[in-house]
């Protein structure tokens, strides 16, 4: 081999050796220990600090809001879904972080992100047509924010936590099976399963309700039913003044053409000359019998004969 070739060979070997050494030294520590990756990377990934904290952390300061929230149907909605990162909020309040907006939920659109009517939304999820709803309850201003009447933390002012609500057999509207409108107008074939409606068990109450001022409402307007499985759901309990005032409180954005409005509960009780100790009275204490429905037969301990008799005379809504 000529000299130049030997020199070239040596040069290449030296370069190769240098390259190999540098390469070996440059392999990150722990690489290849558990596969073709740097073992430390996993622990580093795990070490990142979480930003979202969950509602229990928020509850440490915001006790009242948390208590209301735990009661209502929004119990499955995290504080941070509406308010944004808790960690960033704390940092901002302590002055160690940038100011953050906590109230992205103040717009109607933010409520409608969940409750707007979309074809893709599951049928059982409560959605609302704002226009129709406003017409029903007499809201004049179409831009009225939802929380003027509904407290976002407990939008239906329930009397007890949703988790403790009473189990109730499934209420089957015809539409559960007959999604198509056309079939509902045909007469029911003989032998067809009788759908399970409120009047089937609570015949006397439904019959009475149909005669009273609230007859245009569904039973579920005041007794919200939440379907939980194929066979059962829960009936939520309401009836406190705040619940009734969602419809009956007077607001500048409302018209009283359809629904009798009162300016405030306090004023109403004062007008009636109610003694101070009655300030905690529930609306139903006075108005149940005259405006809503009778109290007899609240539980379903009825004889079949009674039920059959009541069924005949009722034109009640399901």
């Amino acid at each position, binding site marked *: 081999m000529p000299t130049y070739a030997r020199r070239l060979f040596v040069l290449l070997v030296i370069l190769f050796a240098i390259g190999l050494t540098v390469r070996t030294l440059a392999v*990150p520590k722990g*690489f290849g220990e*558990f*596969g*073709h*990756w*740097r*073992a430390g*990377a*996993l*622990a*580093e*990934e*795990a*070490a*990142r*600090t*979480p*930003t*979202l904290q*969950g509602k229990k952390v928020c509850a440490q300061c915001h006790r009242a809001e948390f208590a209301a929230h735990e009661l209502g149907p*929004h119990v*499955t*909605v*995290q504080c*941070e*879904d509406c308010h*944004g*990162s808790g960690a*960033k909020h704390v940092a901002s309040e302590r002055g160690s972080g940038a100011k953050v907006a906590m109230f992205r939920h103040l717009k109607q659109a933010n409520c*409608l*992100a*969940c409750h*707007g*009517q*979309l*074809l*893709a*939304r*599951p049928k059982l*999820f409560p959605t609302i047509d704002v226009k129709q709803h406003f017409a029903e309850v007499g809201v004049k201003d179409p831009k009225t924010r939802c929380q003027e009447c509904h407290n976002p933390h407990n939008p239906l002012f329930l009397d007890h936590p949703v988790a403790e609500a009473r189990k109730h057999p499934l209420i089957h509207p015809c539409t559960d099976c007959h999604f198509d409108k056309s079939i509902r107008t045909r007469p029911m074939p003989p032998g067809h399963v009788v759908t399970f409606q409120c009047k089937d068990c609570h015949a006397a109450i439904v019959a009475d309700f149909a005669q009273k001022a609230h007859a245009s409402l569904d039973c579920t307007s005041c007794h919200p039913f939440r379907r939980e499985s194929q066979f059962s759901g829960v009936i939520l309990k309401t009836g406190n003044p705040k619940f009734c005032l969602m419809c009956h409180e007077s607001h500048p954005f409302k018209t009283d053409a359809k629904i009798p409005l009162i300016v405030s509960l306090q004023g109403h009780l004062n007008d009636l000359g109610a003694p101070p100790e009655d300030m905690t009275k529930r609306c139903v204490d006075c108005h149940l019998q005259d405006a809503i429905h009778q109290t007899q037969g609240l539980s379903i301990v009825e004889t079949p004969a009674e039920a059959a008799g009541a069924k005949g005379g009722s034109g009640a809504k399901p």
Partner: protein
Amino acid sequence: MSEEEKKGGTLSLPEPSEKKPGGSLARRDLLKYSAAGLAGLVTLGKIDDLLAESYPTIGGSYHPDEHWWGFVVDLRKCIGCGACVRACKEENSVPDGFFRTWVERYTFLKDGRVLVDSPDGALEGFEPRADVKPEEVTKSFFVPKLCNHCEQSPCVQVCPVGASYQSPDGLVLIDKTHCIGCGYCVQACPYGCRYLNPVTGTADKCTMCYHRISKGLKTACVEACPHGARHYGDLKDPNSEVRRLLNTSRYGVLKPDLGTHPKCFYIGLDEEVV
């Protein structure tokens, strides 16, 4: 050949076995034992150290080898609010215009067309489709998407430098200190779950909130979901929520024909969803 490879079915659910997937494991075990035997001959009493090939405990109590994470999306429950997308952005500082998770809306029309949209990844939820009359629609639903954490992930396969890897607990993760930002994994992912992060210059993707689940917290998207559509859990644990859901419902995975063996399962999946 390991157990996982032998099954070979496209929709097979990973069994909660002690073995990790991958063909080289049996060989690695063999090497381990022979190495241990050899070392045992030389230095008696050191065998235990050599056999301990499990990943060290993280944060004092989390053992990666004891878990095998999976994800279940219940498509019947998703209301398309976008809370998961916002929570993910917040939790993981995902840059604008990129997504670790997003929500799609499928709209089936009477004329046979299937329309899909995901305005800004559903970061602000959905509006009713302006181009479709409600009476033309036969059915419609939402589909949340995220990294499938495939068992045979094409993105890990193609990473030229070993920056993408599958962790001992079954997650596909990225070593951001080692990634060169070539984008080959972005091309290889059949689900569009990866992106090049313009801030870090490296590939980026869903980590199934490893920093949260390893601390016992829920992932940001599962925590944020108000209607119970998202579930994550340990497939190794027979009593976990994901196991219960998979044992009691019919599910599917995305693009099963590609042989990626996703670990993100969809309950109520429609054939049109890809």
